[in-house]
């Protein structure tokens, strides 16, 4: 299978990339890792008229901590996230389970976030950690909370002329832990169900901040707000996490499909929420 014809613009700067996108209009798409886009083009379900290759833009490949945030540039590959010692909790836990090792060498974290595939891993992690997406358009840069960014399956609120240039993930200052538990059928598969958990503890050991989000069980990655609210102020316990797990299961509206029944997927949400939160709490308590 081969892609249909397109024009290629190799951008050297973000400004050039944005300008090319302005010129290309609706038919233009940015190309970073290309690990989702190129297969879609080969299968001829995506037909961009113009591809704007951003891989040569300098300064977008850093993953580092700054001002209380983990900053991830648009050209940071999944493998860079795996290898980075700047990561923490759910980010570190999820990275090795994205796609497969070779795809991780090419695919970018920002590209995956911008793709807004409800079966994608990263947006759940961003929901759980309360991250922002940094976009740049002709009018300059703006920061969009992940909750505002994700608009639907494969759609975001990113402007047609904007490029995702980075992510800003708040790094907890105190004791914290996180986990990303993913049920996949094999390496390289999308999640059948995955649960991102993030907990911060105060000095008394009570939960001061909680993040919980689900992959693949709704039309978009789902933040389980009621479970988060339930946990804040409470001491971590099996009973608390079981209660949170029930809320998570209730927030999931999966479909019956070839991967399994809806009832079972909800059960996996329940189980992985309990296990994920327990792992997050354990990590936080040991931190």
């Amino acid at each position: 299978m081969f892609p249909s014809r397109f024009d290629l613009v190799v951008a050297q700067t973000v400004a050039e990339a944005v300008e090319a996108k302005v010129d290309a209009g609706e038919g233009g798409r940015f190309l970073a890792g290309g690990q989702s886009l190129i297969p879609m083009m080969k299968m001829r379900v995506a037909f961009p008229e113009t591809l704007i290759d951003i891989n040569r833009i300098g300064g977008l490949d850093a993953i580092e901590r700054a001002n209380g945030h983990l900053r991830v540039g648009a050209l940071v590959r999944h493998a860079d996230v795996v290898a980075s010692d700047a990561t923490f909790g759910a980010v570190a836990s999820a990275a090795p389970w994205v796609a497969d090792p070779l795809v991780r060498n090419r695919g970018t974290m920002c590209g995956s976030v911008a793709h807004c595939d409800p079966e994608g891993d990263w947006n759940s992690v961003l929901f759980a950690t309360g991250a922002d997406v940094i976009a740049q358009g002709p009018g300059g840069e703006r920061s969009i909370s992940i909750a505002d960014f994700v608009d639907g399956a494969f759609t975001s609120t990113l402007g047609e002329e904007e490029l995702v240039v980075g992510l800003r993930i708040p790094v907890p200052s105190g004791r914290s832990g996180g986990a990303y538990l993913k049920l996949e059928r094999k390496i390289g598969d999308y999640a059948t169900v995955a649960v991102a958990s993030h907990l911060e503890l105060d000095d008394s050991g009570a939960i001061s901040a909680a993040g919980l989000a689900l992959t693949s069980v709704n039309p978009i990655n789902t933040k389980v707000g009621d479970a988060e609210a339930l946990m804040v102020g409470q001491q971590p316990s099996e009973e608390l996490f079981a209660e949170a797990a029930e809320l998570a299961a209730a927030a999931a509206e999966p479909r019956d499909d070839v991967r399994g029944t809806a009832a079972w997927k909800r059960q996996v949400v329940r189980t992985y929420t309990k296990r994920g939160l327990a792992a997050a709490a354990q990590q936080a308590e040991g931190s």
Partner: protein
Amino acid sequence: MVAPTTPAEIGGIGHSLQRKEDARLIEGQGNFLDDIDLPNTLHMAILRSPLAHARINGIDSEAAMALDGVLAVVTGDLMDQHGLAWMPTLSGDTQAVLATDKVRYQGQEVAAVIATDPYIATDALELIEVDYEELPPITTPQQSLEEGAALIRDEKEGQTDNLAYTWETGDQGATEEAFAKADRVVTLETHYPRSHPAPLETCGIVADINSVTGQATIYMTSQAPHAHRTLFAMVAGLPEQNIRIVSPDIGGGFGNKVPIYPGYVVATAASLLIGQPVKWVESRTENLISTGFARDYYMKGELAVTDEGRILGLRVNMLSDQGAFYSDAQPTQFRAGLFHVVTGSYDFPAAHIDCKGAFTNKAPGGVAYRCSFRITEASYLIERLVQNAAYEVGIDPAEMRLRNFIQPEQFPYETATGFVYDSGDYPTALRTAMDEVGYEDLRREQAEARAEGRLIGIGIAHFTEAVGAGPSRTYDIAGLKMIDSAELRVHPTGKAILKLGVKTQGQGHETTFAQIVAEVLGIPANDIKVEHGDTNHTPYGLGTYASRSTPVGGAATAVVARKLADKSKKIAAHLLEAADEDIELASGVFSVAGSPDRSVTIQDVALAAYTNLPEGMEYGLEDVTYYDPPNLTYPYGSYIVVVEVDPDTGVWQVQRMVALDDCGVRINPMIVEGQICGGLTEGFAMSAMQWITFDEDGNCIGANFMDYLVPTAWETPRFELLATEVPSPHHPIGAKGVGESATVGSPAAFVNAVIDAVAHLGVRNIDMPVLPDRVWAAIEEAS
């Protein structure tokens, strides 16, 4: 294991010789189909139906034709003008080459573009407009056979329903009697789901027909080049002497590369009409949705058993989903392949097997995927049934098998369905595997784990295969007898060339077949070049599938080598001035009985064969053998799998996998073990994840490697291999074939293990693939 009789430098039978084919493959110098690049090659792309069932009201290819670089758009109507719109299948049905009237499955071939470049050919597909009139799709064989179901094969004369075939075997009366005497009847209804061999290299062809000379050189990913040449001659009417099929390096076959696919016929016709080479290489999606599915058997098995756990009889009803055309690659006499080997490894007097197949709006196929014609389905059913019978009788599944095994002294043993098993020692095999895995301890651990709420399961499968088809009195495909051949020529310097009718797809024939010759003649295996795959340069044979290479082609090789050994002895006698009958041959040295110092080597003899012969003897040292096996061979094995099931999610993990195989004499133990590990992996894949299914509209789910799940190294269990070696009594070197054993035997072991983990809850069946949601649902339902 029997120790090798030749020294390592000769490398005869029993040596784990390094493979001769590796040198080119590790340097990227293999020559696979898509690597063939002839001058002026055109590229073909196929337009396939997006619908499972629809009438074609018209095809508009004008815009595609107008695209720069497009030479032709071939439709069914054009093929029809040449009498090639339909072609025969290997089961006596016909199959559409390019659809003329209806499309009958998603992915069916509708038109083909011939262009100067594969990218352009693909572009042109999007410009072809097909006017489809949708018809109701039939996606299960049960639906298909319902009263009033839409007729899928309305073009077929005399066809008034969707029944593809019926077939029965065994003794119904005797079976009814056995059931009347039984204390209980154990029933299992299960579906062996549709699968696909999915070799890593897809299928392809480069057809190069010279319009002046009529010479047709056809490069094809073919497991059976000679059979394909003859079928091309019969179907396309090309003179057989002008057809040369070349099957180059093959990137795995597993049965997928046995049939002739519509794409081959169209590419060949296009090359003939245009006068340039035409190349077609399937995409992965084309491979998965249109070529050569396997399995898809709905089976109901009933075992008549006594309270002591003795099996008295077996009754099987089977319904197969054939897809739109009945095209199983199988011996003519048998309509459901060798499924009647379903009596397995057990001694009981009566069985009756009743089979029927239905047409559905799915791809045709029915290929023997790493399997000797439906033996995989049969082995799975009996091994699942025997375990369930053990639960019902209340004895251990291992004990159930030991009580019913055919005993070593009963061989040759005629089964209730007419196979004559030639040899075996099943109790030793199972006990050896049980000792290795620590069976009694595992049962204790299982009980302890259950008390803690953990679910451990131990599954056994003891399979018997019937491979190496086959004796010409019984076995033919499309009228071609299932013999095979070897031609051996020893050159004056003592180096040899061996030419085979069979064709490797990774099994290592270039090494193992040389070892057979090395064993007999003592010529070092590395001095023997093995040629195969080119019909102009090799003798006729039916090819490599159904584990038949070693049983048939290997036998031919041993026999032809022995013929040359006989002639060589006469030459040696002449050189040594001794009597013919006094010459002894060992490891390439001919000596005179009683005077071992008087000797010549095979190299001396080879030179003499062209320079210094006894009076009246014809020059040369070469011969050819066509081997007609007296019986099939019957490899067997005992597999034990240990799993742990997560009761909260149904996810299961393999903890241990012990596999004992008896494939008779092992020509190259390293290669044998490699075959077994590969086969076990495919068996695991089918039990755990690898299947093709369809939605209710007939859309194929499993159309690419994101949906058709092939396990990676991460999911694949570690295997512990064991062996016993009961030689085949009739095979010239006692070998039985091994390439498919592990795929045949292992699925039942994996599934039995998962069932065993939850059997105490009353669970008796979970269909493959044993997906975690199915396991969880079974637990929920039982508790």
